[in-house]
């Protein structure tokens, strides 16, 4: 069975400092991994996705994530946080062998950015 664990429920950083949101996954098959962001009262927006191509994935708004199979991790990073990055971030896994493609979500990490 697939699962996702986000290691921090809340992360607080200062504006201009790096962001690291941690995610570990468990999957019996070749996983497809995603990071989605949810701003207050908004829907879920895709930040980036990994689908077995390059292990370092670049997304929108300067975010990137690295797929590390040996560590079963897919951590999200950004070199310099901006106030507008404050939101809830979800690490998500999907089974590439499942044509229906349901997504399995982590618990979410709330990112706060201090001025």
């Amino acid at each position: 069975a697939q699962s996702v664990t986000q290691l921090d429920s809340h992360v607080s950083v200062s504006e201009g400092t790096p962001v690291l949101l941690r995610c570990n996954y468990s999957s019996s098959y070749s996983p497809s991994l995603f990071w989605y962001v949810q701003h207050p009262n908004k829907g879920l927006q895709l930040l980036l996705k990994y689908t077995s191509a390059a292990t370092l994935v670049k997304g929108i708004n300067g975010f990137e994530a690295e797929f590390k199979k040996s560590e079963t991790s897919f951590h999200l990073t950004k070199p310099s946080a901006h106030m507008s990055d404050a939101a809830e971030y979800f690490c998500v896994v999907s089974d590439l062998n499942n044509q229906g493609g349901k997504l399995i979500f982590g618990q979410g990490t709330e990112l706060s950015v201090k001025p």
Partner: protein
Amino acid sequence: EPEVTQTPSHQVTQMGQEVILRCVPISNHLYFYWYRQILGQKVEFLVSFYNNEISEKSEIFDDQFSVERPDGSNFTLKIRSTKLEDSAMYFCASKVSGTWETQYFGPGTRLLVL
């Protein structure tokens, strides 16, 4: 840019009443999904729908739930007799096709059952 839309944005209903949540997926998409997020909990998969039939459903998706694509544009989730524990944010999502494609989410419908 095309987007998934959902109506209503908020709905309040009495326990035992039927509700229908509506979604308009992106027009050339073929796979459709409903997820829900109970306040303070993770987003959970409910059901996937392809080629006019359910392709997968979770344990949550019991006989009280049903989905329908009544025409070429709408995708609906019906809860026949709502319970207090159905209170949640319900998200619709769609994707073009295939395993590698991204699911695009709507803004959600917040359902409150009293």
